[in-house]
């Protein structure tokens, strides 16, 4: 083989003028571009570009409180303020909310922490492609870095927000139960679910800006659809569908469905919040069935969310 020459040979040295009549009006069908990125390939590319994600997260983390007098204290203050409002409002319903003997603020705060990670990521990550428009249209790296980067930032904030939880434990003279070891698993479910939803929503918002208006409403209502205030166990574990006999106020036999498991599949946050409360606060073993469906559900959200994102990304730069 001859060695590469730095000066290319005569090729291209001659002027070639295009014959304009030779250009067809439309491309032939066999060269049309279809955007197909295999799931695993895109994951690998994303992994190769993880440093960009960290850098973007660092940027947002630094910028977030840059000109706020209280700075990072806000990461603590925001959930505490939510807690104060919740306690003020819902202590009137003390009797109707069964916390299993756990003090109200502690019970709420765990829910608020889990919820705020999800809500914060979805809120910021959902519009992350729009807020990074300039980069989106001018630089080249996996686009999912944007929504996922906001999740990283929220995770950091969330970690800081756990500080008041420690104070609450001390104040009420309680300690986290040994079953707390399960909590990282619940967090994993939450992260998978949040990533999936945020990827899907962020890629859809860019095509349909209407979503951007609706999203805050959905997020602020979602807190009531999730067991942040009410206990997860108020969802029936055995919901009778048909058949069987009604004896002494109970159904015996027939077909029933575990609504907790169904709920967990649709909204994995339910079993997650419940799981944290069960283990950390009450010292029970986790209720596995809803957690399992939650895990499967979260996996589905991530898979289909990521697929949607990859499918829609062809147009991002053109319509952003």
């Amino acid at each position, binding site marked *: 083989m001859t060695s590469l020459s730095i000066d290319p040979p005569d090729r291209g040295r001659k*002027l*070639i003028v295009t014959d*304009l009549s030779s250009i067809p009006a439309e*491309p032939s069908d066999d*060269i049309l571009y279809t955007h197909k990125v295999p799931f695993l390939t895109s994951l690998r590319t994303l992994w190769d570009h993880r440093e960009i994600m960290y*850098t973007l997260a660092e940027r947002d983390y630094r910028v977030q409180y840059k000109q706020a007098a209280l700075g990072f204290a806000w990461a603590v203050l925001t959930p505490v303020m939510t807690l104060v409002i919740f306690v003020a409002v819902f202590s009137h319903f003390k009797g109707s909310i069964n916390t299993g003997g756990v003090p109200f603020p502690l019970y709420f705060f765990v829910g608020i922490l889990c919820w705020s990670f999800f809500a914060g990521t979805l809120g910021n990550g959902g519009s992350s492609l729009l807020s990074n428009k300039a980069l989106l249209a001018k630089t080249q790296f996996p686009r999912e870095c944007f929504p996922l980067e906001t999740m990283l930032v929220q995770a950091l904030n969330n970690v800081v927000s756990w500080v008041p939880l420690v104070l609450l434990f001390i104040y009420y003279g309680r300690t986290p139960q040994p079953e707390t070891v399960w909590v990282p698993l619940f967090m994993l479910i939450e992260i998978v679910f949040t990533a999936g939803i945020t990827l899907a929503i962020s890629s859809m918002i860019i095509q349909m800006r209407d979503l951007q208006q609706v999203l805050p409403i959905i997020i602020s209502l979602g807190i009531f659809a999730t067991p942040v205030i009410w206990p997860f166990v108020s969802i029936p574990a055995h919901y009778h569908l048909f058949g069987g006999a009604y004896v002494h106020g109970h159904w015996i036999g027939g077909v029933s469905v575990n609504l907790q498991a169904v709920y967990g599949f649709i909204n994995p946050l339910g079993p997650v919040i419940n799981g944290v409360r069960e283990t950390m606060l009450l010292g029970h073993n986790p209720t596995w069935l809803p957690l399992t469906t939650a895990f499967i559900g979260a996996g589905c959200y991530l898979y289909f969310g990521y697929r949607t994102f990859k499918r829609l990304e062809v147009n991002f730069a053109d319509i952003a």
Partner: protein
Amino acid sequence: MPTLPNGSVEVEHVWKKFRSDKAQPFFYDQLARLGRQAKSRNATGYRWVLKDVNFKVEPGESMALIGINGSGKTTLLKILSQVTYQSAGKCTVQGRIGALLSVTSGLHPDLNGRENVFLYGAVLGMSREDIRRKFDTIVEFAELTDAIDRQVKFYSMGMQMRLGFSIAAFLEPDVLLVDEVLAVGDANFQQKCLQRIGEIVRDGTTLLYVSHDLASVEASCQRAVWLSDAVVRAAGPTSEVVTMYRTAIEQNSTVLTTKEGVVQVLKADLRATDGGQLRSECETEVRLVLKSPEKAMASFFVGISQGTAFPMFVIDYTGTMPEGDFEVVCKLGYLPLPKGHYSLWTAITGFPKGKKDPYLPWQPVVSFEAFGPERMDPPEGVMAMTPVYVGAEWQIG
């Protein structure tokens, strides 16, 4: 440290379409569109911004994409860097791509210069380790050593652009895509940028450079591709493609002469005084036959340009313009042009009574060929835009 070049670009039958209506369609817009489509079968709803584009950039080569605004140059670069995707065809890029599509879009105003170097560097594809190693070089190149710990929102536009360009200048990719970014900073810095691009190319980086600044294209690229109306019109050695491009622009710009000035150009001519060929260094006469509606004081301008509205030199004269048909003869002692195709531009300033338009707006009136020695090229990486001094003798009547 020159290495063997290993980046190459191949573009095969690339097509790209944009929706005609780039705005996000509302529901009722969609309805209206359906209505239109029902009426006329061939309402397309999209337009082609690239049609059947083919070219190849060999390893180590520098290639320019030239063409007027909206001819598809930037879109093509975006497709190559996978910011957007082609509608049809195939792009193959071998080697690591570095794309500088905009100088400042990666900078965050709230972060300081130092943080921004790391941010933008990472976004452009450098590893943290790389950036740390090159940090001092980058800052020094950007001439921002004193300002590096200041928030970027307190930088001037020029400083921001310098910072952005400097980061990209040290990317060291295999293929560098650069889009129209040399309007950076002052003349000295521009010169520095061009030199840096020259260095990058000598080091073996394959360069694809988009610009409509022909001087910088000639200074830094061996080959050029001319895009016009979504198609490649010509490809080949820079000087030849640029000449074709300039001729085409002139042909378009002569349309300007139909613009209604108050003075009409009846004839315009340029010839050697001795009656021979127009050639370098010969004594030359510019003759214009004009028709004026009134007698007035006015300033006459004559300039020569090469494919742009910006003349290489201008000579002017202020005197009395007679009413009716008259002839202007402007004798140049010396034609300071190398061989090439040029156009003669002219203008008459001053305003006719009660009108807002000048007597004659700046416009090309005739194009001509000059013979003589070839242009001498400036050193590599230097833009040739030297002003020329020409003495002249004027005669009006």
